[in-house]
């Protein structure tokens, strides 16, 4: 969970209090250290952990487990064989998200480039985008039963609209003069798609994928909570038995995996779009 702060945890950015306090009058090693983002993170996260530990001690083990108990919880869930359960849930996640990418990117591109497709499909996509998908889960259970298909569909639905909406925004934002330029230099209509539309939309597609995968994790756990299988069932059991250290450890593990997935997409983004990287390095 190295880069967690950039994606999900806004705390370091919002409360730069402690490092600012360290940058007092003299410009020394201390002020250099205070400008380092890892020092800043260490200070803020450390402070949060201390606050949490005090809260945990004050509230007592019935409400909040202390940090060393949570660390022990990691060992316990490993020994209780929870990790394979989590991994098999991830298989559902991968299948559902993969399907969402395969469907979402082409639909998004078509919506962004064709007013006809946008007029026909767009209104359903935008409608479902703002629908609470959690509310339709009982319907989905009726339609798909409680097995593999249901979990796949939930993950799919939780991620696909983010992918479609962002990809469509990217395809719509393709600079018209670049398409004209390609036409001017004899690039055929079909090849204009690969020479201009795809690379130009790519940054938006990646944003869609990042939002999509974060939501796919939500969908995965939610679906499993409803039908009491896999990771969701483990969480439910741990919560009901009040095995709080294990519960906290398990939640942190899922969060870390989601963060890792988005981080992986950022790495892919840098690999796929070197131009953006090199441009960033200019200033």
């Amino acid at each position, binding site marked *: 969970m190295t880069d967690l702060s950039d994606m999900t945890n806004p705390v370091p950015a919002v409360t730069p209090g402690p490092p600012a306090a360290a940058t007092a009058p003299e410009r020394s090693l201390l002020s250099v250290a205070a400008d380092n983002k890892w020092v800043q993170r260490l200070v803020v996260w450390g402070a949060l952990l201390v606050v949490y530990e005090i809260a945990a001690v004050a509230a007592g083990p019935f409400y909040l487990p202390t940090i060393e108990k949570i660390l022990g919880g990691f060992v316990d869930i490993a020994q209780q064989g929870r990790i394979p359960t989590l991994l098999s849930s991830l298989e559902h996640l991968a299948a559902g998200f993969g399907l969402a990418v395969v469907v979402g990117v082409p639909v998004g591109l078509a919506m962004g480039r064709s007013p006809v497709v946008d007029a026909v499909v767009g209104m359903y996509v935008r409608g479902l985008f703002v629908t609470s998908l959690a509310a339709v889960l009982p319907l989905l259970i009726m339609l798909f039963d409680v097995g593999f298909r249901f979990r796949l569909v939930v993950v799919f639905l939780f991620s696909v609209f983010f992918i479609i909406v962002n990809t469509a925004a990217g395809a719509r934002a393709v600079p018209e003069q670049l398409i004209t330029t390609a*036409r001017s230099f*004899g690039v055929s209509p079909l090849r204009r798609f690969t020479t201009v539309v795809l690379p130009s939309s790519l940054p938006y597609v990646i944003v869609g994928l990042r939002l999509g995968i974060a939501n796919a994790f939500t969908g995965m756990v939610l679906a499993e909570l409803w039908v009491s299988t896999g990771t969701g069932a483990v969480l439910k059991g741990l919560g009901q038995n009040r095995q709080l250290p294990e519960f906290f450890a398990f939640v942190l593990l899922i969060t870390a995996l989601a963060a890792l997935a988005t981080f992986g997409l950022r790495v892919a983004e840098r690999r796929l779009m070197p131009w953006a990287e090199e*441009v960033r390095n200019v200033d």
Partner: protein
Amino acid sequence: MFLEIDRVTKIFRLQRRRAVQELRALSEISVSVQEGSFVAICGPSGCGKSTLLRLIHGLQRPDGGEVRVAGKRVSEPTLDRAMVFQHHNLMPWRTVVRNVELGLERSGLSRNAREAKALEWLAKVGLEEFAGYYPAQLSGGMQQRVGLARALTVDPEMLLMDEPFGALDAQTRVVLQGELERIWEADSKTVVFITHDIEEAIFLADRVIVMSARPGRIIADIPVGAARPRGDAWRAAPEFAALKGQIWALLQGTAEMREPTQGAAA
């Protein structure tokens, strides 16, 4: 004649609430251009000069009349007419050399041959060492030179330039005008150069065509006989100033004539 613009009319239709308003951008324009000559089209903004260039290229089609190149009617952009745009229009995700290769990609040349050709033209515009850079890493003048190299790499018979130096600072503009003249001297292609800068037109062209605004019509066709290579001496020559004064007077005349011409067109 190599390029014939034959009574070309272009009308834009603008949707205004329920009514459709017609805007006559060009009205029965006729121009002929000799092979190998450098023609500048000069006029106030909104006179339809860019539209005329797009019609010559085939990016748009006329509502009346036709454009012929070497006797053949223009209907689509082809690689024997290459365009340099006002904004560089380079693909930000391609390196400089890959941008210059754009027009060669359907030529059947191997990748190495395409690259060699692109590098050759990059060298001619003085940018060979920037081949691996991305467009955003270059200055405005360099981006415009890449755009020029991209157009020249396809070895067109005609170069169409749509105010290519319009967005540059005055100094860079003068440098690039000089370079363009040098390149044009070396392999004299037919050039149609759109500009609103009178000095630029007189410095570069063999012929300056002056247009009036809305509807775009040709009001003068002035030959520029100065010997080449021209260089800074021509900019300082009294004939240069005289031509500038003459064209300036013509353009001011169109501003005063504007009301009656609009009435006549309607």
